[in-house]
Each structure stands twice: as structure tokens, then as C-alpha cells.
């Protein structure tokens, strides 16, 4: 993301102008834009003109519109962001108050204006504009019959393909059916792989599975590559890494990213960091349950006592449509920071973020044990 212009007064209200440059930036933008903000961008609008004789002309014009945001829609598969709202600046084609949906495009600048830019939003801009090259990662998590082809970027885990086939079991005298089924399954994965993986971007390919499936698949993949004379695949053989995972389901990605051999190779991918933080939380819950809290109310109470050492919070919470809700979480984050605590913002697209999301979206590791108060048992029920 490129930051072109930034104009804020001391109340933190103002606007920024940004140019998204890659898919990931769309995700950041999605997290930045909130209902009530104004967004200005160039767009194509179908305009109907009517002549004095009554004939109607429909034409498509490119124009720049400013809208007040009412709806935000993010498509993870195509990485497209659609923002709908009402026009607030009259121009020759579009009337005031007319509805329009802006489709934010790559390499086309937009200006976002907020009444109040909070710390989370500002941090997000900094993070998005960080020019450090991030390693894009492809992971194939598989077991016999199920495979997930995931693309992992610093703040997103995108399932590009989910392959599911039923493979006949081994059976007296019918072992060839098993082998045939297995090869059909492998071929499907290879097809998906060729369709979705671009080796210019991808730095590393993880193949993870329980048992020998990964080795078997790897052999099969390169045997096929030889057969098909697929140069790119053979040249990039060094990018493949085999890892053990306990199953072929998506959540096993967590184990893969926690594998020490992989973390060394990935350096500081955000995904791996998140996994570690969540693991720390669970370990704490096991060793000293009074030092591990989850749920907003509990965490807020801990924050009041300045007890939070690490706060794990999902970015999902900040996308809340309700301004007061968002404020509540922002305040929590700010107060933890003030008191010298560490805040880890989880991406809800990563597996660890998904799990945190299920766990009410916010969890904390405390500096000192705080015994749990009884009587506030009811609050958990309305969290989900």
C-alpha cells in the first residue's frame, strides 16, 4: 500500500489517500473502512440521459464520487472490496443521495475520511504501508481423501482449493482400486496447484500430512512434472518442504506453522507469531488458569487492574458495525498499551485467528494471578 496524503487535525479527524498495490492491501482496506466514513474514489457509473424528445441514452462514464459508507463487502476468494453508500457530493452525472457501489481496484487511489482515526486504524495504515517484502507461502495440508491448498500471506490465509474424494479402502484382492483412487486424488491436487500457485510470488511450499501421504504425493508430483515436462515445477523443487501434521483439516495448519523447522524458515511471518501467542495462552491456562483470561468482560476487569501482560485480540472485533462496540475494544487495547502490555492483533483469516474468534475474540495472559470471581457466569452466554 502507498500512502499519498495524510491530513489530520488534532482531534484525529481527517483523511488519508492510499493506493492499494496487492491483494493483501484490500484486506487492510476492508479493516480500515467503517460504516459512516466517507470514501472518495474514481468509478464507472451507468448514466441515463433523456433528450427533450423522450429518447433515452444510456452511457457508462468514469467519474469520481464521494460516498458515505453504508455497506462493506469483502470477497476473500477474488480479494475484491465493494463499498456501497450514498453520494454526498453532487456532480454532473450523479445526484446527491443517489446510491452507488464503489469497487476498489488495485493501483487506483482512494481517499478515506473518518471522523476519528483511532490507534487501531492508524496502526493498520502503518502496517499496510510497511514496504518489507513478505514471504508468501503455499501450504498443502492433506490426508488420504482430503486436501486443502492454502495461500498464506502475512495477514491472510486463503483456502484456494479444497479437494475431497472418496478413496476405496484396501480390500482383499482389490488393492488396485485403492491405488487408482489415490492417484486420482493426487492428480486433482496437482491441477489445483498449477492453477493457483504462482512461483514468482510464492517463496515456499509446505506439504503437510500425517503418515506417508506427503512423501508419496511429493514423489508423485515430481514424477508427473517430469512426464509433463513442467519446467517451473522442477526448477522450484528446492522451495518444497515436507512437514508433519496430524490431519488434513484446515486447523492442522496451526501445527504446521508451529513446527520449529518451519518457523526458522519463515522468519517472522505474522501467522507463525500468532500461533505461538495462542499456544502460550493455552499453556498458561493449563499451568495457571488464574493467569489466563478470555471474554471481553473478564479481560476488561483484568485491564482495570493493570494485570494484562499480553492481549490477544481478533481484528474481527474492530469491524463491528456498532461504533460504541468498536470504541470499547479500542479503549481496551489502548489501556493495555498504556500499562506496558503487549497487544497482538490476530487476523481473523488465519487459523489461529479463527480459533481466537471462537474463543470470544479476546484473550489475555496476565502478569499475576487474579482469582476468578463467581457470579458473572452469565456473560459468556451472550458472547456467541
Amino acid at each position: 500500500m502507498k500512502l499519498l496524503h495524510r491530513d489530520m487535525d488534532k482531534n484525529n479527524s481527517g483523511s488519508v489517500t492510499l493506493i492499494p498495490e496487492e491483494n493483501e492491501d484490500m484486506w487492510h482496506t476492508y479493516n480500515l473502512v467503517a460504516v459512516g466514513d466517507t470514501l472518495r474514489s474514481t468509478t464507472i457509473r451507468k448514466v441515463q440521459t433523456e433528450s427533450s424528445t423522450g429518447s433515452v441514452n444510456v452511457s457508462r462514464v468514469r467519474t469520481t464520487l464521494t460516498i458515505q459508507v453504508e455497506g462493506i463487502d469483502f470477497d476473500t476468494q477474488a480479494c475484491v472490496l465493494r463499498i456501497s453508500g450514498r453520494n454526498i457530493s453532487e456532480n454532473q452525472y450523479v445526484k446527491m443521495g443517489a446510491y452507488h457501489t464503489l469497487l476498489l481496484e488495485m493501483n487506483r487511489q482512494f481517499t478515506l475520511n473518518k471522523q476519528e482515526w483511532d490507534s487501531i486504524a492508524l496502526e493498520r495504515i502503518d502496517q499496510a504501508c510497511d514496504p518489507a517484502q513478505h514471504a508468501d507461502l503455499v501450504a498443502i495440508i492433506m490426508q488420504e481423501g482430503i486436501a486443502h491448498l492454502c495461500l498464506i500471506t502475512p495477514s491472510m490465509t486463503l483456502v484456494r482449493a479444497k479437494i475431497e474424494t472418496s478413496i476405496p479402502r484396501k480390500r482383499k484382492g482389490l488393492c488396485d482400486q485403492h491405488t487408482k483412487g489415490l492417484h486420482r486424488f493426487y492428480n486433482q491436487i496437482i491441477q489445483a496447484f498449477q492453477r493457483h500457485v504462482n512461483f514468482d510470488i510464492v517463496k515456499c511450499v509446505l506439504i503437510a500430512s500425517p503418515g506417508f501421504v506427503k512423501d508419496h504425493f511429493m514423489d508423485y508430483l515430481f514424477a508427473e512434472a517430469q512426464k509433463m515436462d513442467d519446467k517451473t515445477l522442477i526448477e522450484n523443487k528446492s522451495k518444497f518442504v515436507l512437514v508433519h501434521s496430524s490431519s488434513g483439516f484446515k486447523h492442522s495448519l496451526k501445527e504446521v506453522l508451529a513446527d520449529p523447522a518451519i518457523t526458522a524458515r519463515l522468519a517472522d511471518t505474522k501467522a507463525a507469531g500468532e500461533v505461538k501467542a495462542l499456544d502460550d495462552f493455552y499453556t498458561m491456562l493449563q499451568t495457571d488458569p488464574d493467569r489466563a483470561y478470555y471474554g471481553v468482560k473478564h479481560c476488561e476487569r483484568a485491564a482495570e487492574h493493570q494485570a494484562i501482560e499480553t492481549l490477544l485480540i481478533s481484528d474481527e472485533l474492530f469491524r463491528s458495525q456498532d461504533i460504541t462496540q468498536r470504541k470499547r475494544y479500542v479503549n481496551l487495547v489502548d489501556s493495555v498499551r498504556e500499562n506496558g502490555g503487549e497487544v497482538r492483533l490476530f487476523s481473523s483469516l488465519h487459523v489461529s485467528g479463527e480459533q481466537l474468534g471462537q474463543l470470544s475474540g479476546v484473550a489475555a495472559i496476565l502478569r499475576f494471578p487474579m482469582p476468578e470471581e463467581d457470579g458473572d457466569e452469565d456473560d459468556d452466554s451472550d458472547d456467541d
Partner: protein
Amino acid sequence: MSRHRMIRSMNYEDEYYDEEDEYSRSVEDNYCISPSTAAQFTWTREKNVNFASYMNSEEVIDEGDEDAEEDDSSSRNSLNDSANSARLRLSDVDQAKLNSCLEEARNILGESVSEAVMVDVIIQNQYNLEAAVNQLLTQQDVPKPQREPRQRRNRTQAPPASNSGFASATVTHLPDDNSTTFPCPTECMPSTMAALTVTTSGPTVVTPSASSAKGTIGFQEEDVPAVPRQTPSTSPVAGRKPGLKMKADTASLSSTFTPKTGSKKATGIGTALDVGDGEGTSRSSADSSLRSAVESMGLEGDECTIQASVDSMKSLATSKTRSKVSKLDVMAEYAKRHGDKDLLNLVVIGHVDAGKSTLMGHLLYQLGSVNKKTMHKYEQESKKLGKSSFAFAWVLDETEEERSRGVTMDVAQTRFETAKKIVTLLDAPGHKDFIPNMITGTSQADVAVLVINATRGEFETGFDAGGQTREHALLARSLGVGQIIVAVNKMDTVEWSQERYQLITKKLGQFLSRQAGFREGDVTFVPCSGLSGENLSKPPTVPELVSWYSPATTLVEQIDKLRPPVRPIDKPFRLNVSDVFSRVGSGFNVAGRVGSGFVQPGDKVFIMPAAMNATVKNVYIDDSAETVAFAGDHINMTLSGVDMVNVNIGSCLCDPAFPAKSATKIRAKIVIFSIDVPITKGFPVVFHYQSINEPAVIKRLLSQLNRNTGEVVKRKPRCLVKNSSASVEIELERSLCLELYTDFKDLGRFMLRSGGHTIAAGVVEEVFVVLTKIIFTA
């Protein structure tokens, strides 16, 4: 407004017609029907159609209607077809004879009798023209007195008073049934006939008084063998019965002229079918001959009209009544089939490289399930790979990869017999990555053999933390295995040392009874060696072992001592599909263990969660076709009426009257094993149930329970720590068929795993059924 103006200024001709002028036209557009359609469906005089044949077919339908308003259409159709089918089965010579007879008969009788009737009568009289014409002429007279009771019976619909066509149709109908079955029974099963005549009371001429609705019921009870065709379908809803019976009545009424053997045959078929259905009313000493009758009838079933109509009626019958009616007989059949040998599903578990496959391979070899030639081949081939010690394991490890790696990867299934038991052997993999497969195998088993490697150091690694011995034992116990034999294997590597054996039995005995929860009497130990085959099926001969091991019980003797579990045969049918595969010649097969109830070829089953109907075509146990399979049997079935893509591993085949519940959310009671990280809400797990493993999330922690008493210790706990018990809500990614533990013990159990470890075992307490469900098959 602009829109309106647009319309006004529009040029209609251009807008509407310009496109259609030139394209999308064919010759047929100019005529009301195409020539080909006309040729097929319009009647023309030139074609010389026999009008009587039209009329006749209509009459038959009418008659069917009157006879049984409630009767299902398929049976009616099959009755109509009977004339054709009789004709179809004729050889060329007979066909020629028939045609010439037909021509002559037509000359004599004109159009007064329909062709179908003539054909039947001619065939009956073995192409004797004179006899046939005589019969036809007498028939035309005979039926008249019979119409009286018929009319009285049909309260709702009085048939048109006089037409000989109708009368003859009544008659035709009946010989049809007999004549169609005529050729086969006499030829192929005279012995059956003889046996049957003993049991049946012979065809009786039924008086018309037995015709009122009330009368029919009594009739059925008193004189069952005389109305043979209904007996197989005793089940159908009561409302259907009268109709059926009337048809049978007419059969017997008009049998004044039909040969006696004919109706007797029908009786034979009826009773034979009875037995096939497992609900025979007249089972007698002639059991075995009846069985053969079932088989020969079964082969013929497709052509035989009666069979077809019976089948269609049977399938329509709600299984509820059927299972009630036939329960007793099924039980009897069940007891009879296994005789003095009990069926036992036995799973072999243990740490990787404990020698499970070798032990069982050798056992199978000793029991003669594997012939010497194959064994020799395995020995040679394994020697080539430099793994001669794996020769016996190759009996069970069949895939190339398993053999080359020397590791069992998926459950192998075979069957062997001992003196007292028929054992279905499931050889589970020991490697920790294949525990999902091991769970699949164990969930289908009644008892287990836990194989222990007695070698110094090996037992310890297998038993201590990280080894699979503990996990397997715990899994087996949680999955409902009550009895366990511990085979202390590889005793030859420790010189059959008694101390070693005692050390192992002591340690394991404590663990199995205290921690795993096996009853002390249900755990037995056997020292053995899989490789040398010592103490498997023959008493030990090695002096080191004989010196201290007494009384010597071999592994097979121990297996014989196991008690088979009580199987839920009286429950509705359930089968969890563990494999779907196609086989040349038999369409597609599903395999699995019958969880409860029983299944027979011809049964309708309901596939959940795809919510589809299918018909069971064949049932195979161990590759031999069976007429019925009971709970506990490992079977293959061929299904018809459903596509292969709709049946996946994990689908549930069930009784259409009692479909399985499918849901994505359940409430369950779980027992947590020793885990590293506590379980919180939102914890992702893999849900293992029968042969499926699915990702799931623990949605909510409802309460923490006391492990022993089940009392609520704490409501809404924040987390669940190791060795505790709790009530939780689990959400599955896809909808699965689950049963309550209280309804089906075996089918209500599941395991939760995470990160390669088994974290909890659970039982289903409540299934939140989704009312509207949309199922996507990927």
C-alpha cells in the same frame, strides 16, 4: 413515462418478429404433429390392428381396479404383463406352434375371446388346439355364476352387467398367475413340491361367503396356506389387505378348472417366499428344501409375476410393521444361522511394530485360512525385499506401500473360524499417524487383542507416554470394547523369561483395570510369539515356556472363551458406510458393519444425510451372498436406485420408517484424557465417529461433571483440564448422522482428537436436528 413513450414509438414488427422469421423453424412447426409421432401414436386402419387386444388390456386394468382399489399400481402392471411374459419365454418352435393354434382358434371363436386369453389357454393345453378351444368355450359359460359374489363384494363399483370380454378377463387373469410360474417349479424342484404338500393343506375351493371384508380377515388367519400369495405380505397396512385377499379369493374360486398343481405351486412359492422374508408362517421340518426353493425362486424372481408383485407390495409395506411381525422369525433365523458358533468381531491393537500383523498372519496360516502356496510366495517375495520377517504380515498388509514400508496403514479385514467362534478379524495399524484408521476398526469391534512387544526396552517405549499401547487401550475401552486379551508377543526374544512376562502382566494389569476401566475378569494374558508361531493355535512346545506356563492356554483357546455381546437386532436398521467401491459386474458396493437391526436383499433403505432412497440388491458376507444380515455382521451390499456420488464414507443407511437423525450440532458428555492444553470453547478438534473423521469445534462448555458420579461440579467452566468430565456442545462442519447413546450404545460413541492426540471420548446425549437442510456433495 419514458418507458411508456418507448413502447408507443416502438416498431412492433421489428421488435418482435424480426428474429424469429428466419431461424428456429423446422418442418414440424407447420403441422400439429410430426410424421414420426403420428406413426407411433395415431391409429390407422391400414395397420390391421386387432381391436380385441385393446379391449382386453383395458378390461384387465378395470378388473384390477375393482379387485383392489387400494392395491398398488405396480402389482397391477405386473399382472397385466404376465400374458406377455408367458409368451416371451417361449422357444421358437413353441412360438410357431402357438401362432398356428391361434389362427385356428380365431377361425372358430372369432373375436369373442381376446388374443391374450387364447395364448394363455393354448399354452396351458400344450398347443392342443381342440382342448384349448374346448376350454375357452366352457370358460365363456362358467364365469357367469361367479359374477354374483364379485359384484356383491365390490361395494363401490359395480361392473357393467354383461360382456363376455369381461368375464373372460376375469378368468384369464387367474391362469396367468399359475401358468407363468408353470414351467419352472415342476422341473426344478420336485423335492420341494413334495415337502410342501406335507405342510400345506392343499388348495381348497373357497366359498363365496369368505368374501366380505370381515370374512377375509378370519379367512386369512384360519387358512393361511390356502391363500399363499398374501402370506409374504402379511405386513402391509391393514387397509391394503382386503383387496389383496379378494384377488386371492378369485384365484381359488375360479380354480374350478385350473389344474390342482397350479395353485399348489403358488402355495409353494408363497411359502418359499415366506422363508426368504424371514417371516414364514408355515416353517416346518422341510426347512432345508424350502431354502433351496427360496434360492431357485430367487433366481427367477425377475420374471415371476407373483414374485414381482409380492416384492413391490413388500417394499411398500412400512418396515415398522414388518419388523414387528417378523421379529420372532428373524430371531429364530439368527439363532439358527450361527448355530453353536458365535460371531465375534475382533480387533488387533497395540504399539507400532509390536507384531500385530505378523501374529495374526501366522494365526490365519495355522488355522488354514491361508494356503501354503500363497505363504510360500510371500516368503520368497519378502526375502527379495530383505524383509523376510514380514512374510506373515503380508497376509494382511496387502497394498504395495504397506509391504515396502513394513507398516500397516489401514485396517485389514478377514474372517476365520475356530472351534466355537466365527471371528471377523480387524487388523488395526499401530502407527500413531494412523490412529484414525484404528478408531474406524475398533468402533466396529466387540473384543480386542492387545499385542505387546516383550522385547526389553520395546515394551517400555510402547507403554510409556508417547507410546500407542496406552492410547489404543483407552480408545478400545471408550469405543465399547469390554473384553481384552493381552498377547505378550515376541517372547522368544527374551528367552521366554517368566520374570519378564510377570513384569509385563503386572504393569498392564494395573493399567487396564485401574486406568482404562476394564473389569479384572475381562483381561487375560497369553505369552506367544508371532514369528515362530508358538502358543497361537497349538499348545506350546518350547521347554522354557512349558516349564512355567501352566495351565497352558493358547491364543485361540482364549478367543474361544470370549463372550459375544448381545446385538441390537430388534432395533431399526442402521449401517454406517465405511467404504464405497465399484466392482466389475455388480455396480457399486458399499461396505460396513450393520450397527443394528437386519437387512435383506430387496429392502428399501434410506441414505442419510443425502436423504435418498435406495433398494438393496444383494447382501454379501465375506463375498458370499446371503439372504439376511444382522447387527454385527460386516457386509458388502450392492445398491440400486441411487447414484454412487450420493453415498460417501460416513453416510448412514437406515430404515426408511426410522431415519437416522443428522445434525451439525450435538450435546455430548465427554471424558477428557490426559492432555497438555486445556479445552476451552472454540477449541478445534477432529471428531471421530464410526468410520468418519470430521473437523469440529467445541462450541460451548455447559458444565463440568464429577467423573464418577456424573454430578455437576461447576456450571459454565472457563476451561476443562485433564482427566475431567464435562457436558459440552459440539458443532460439526458438515451434518453427520449420529445416534443417541441411550438409543444405540454402539452408535452413540465418538472420540475427539487434536494435534495427533486423543483428547477425549464422548457419548452423544442430544442431537439438534436441523429441520431444513441443504446438502451439498462436494
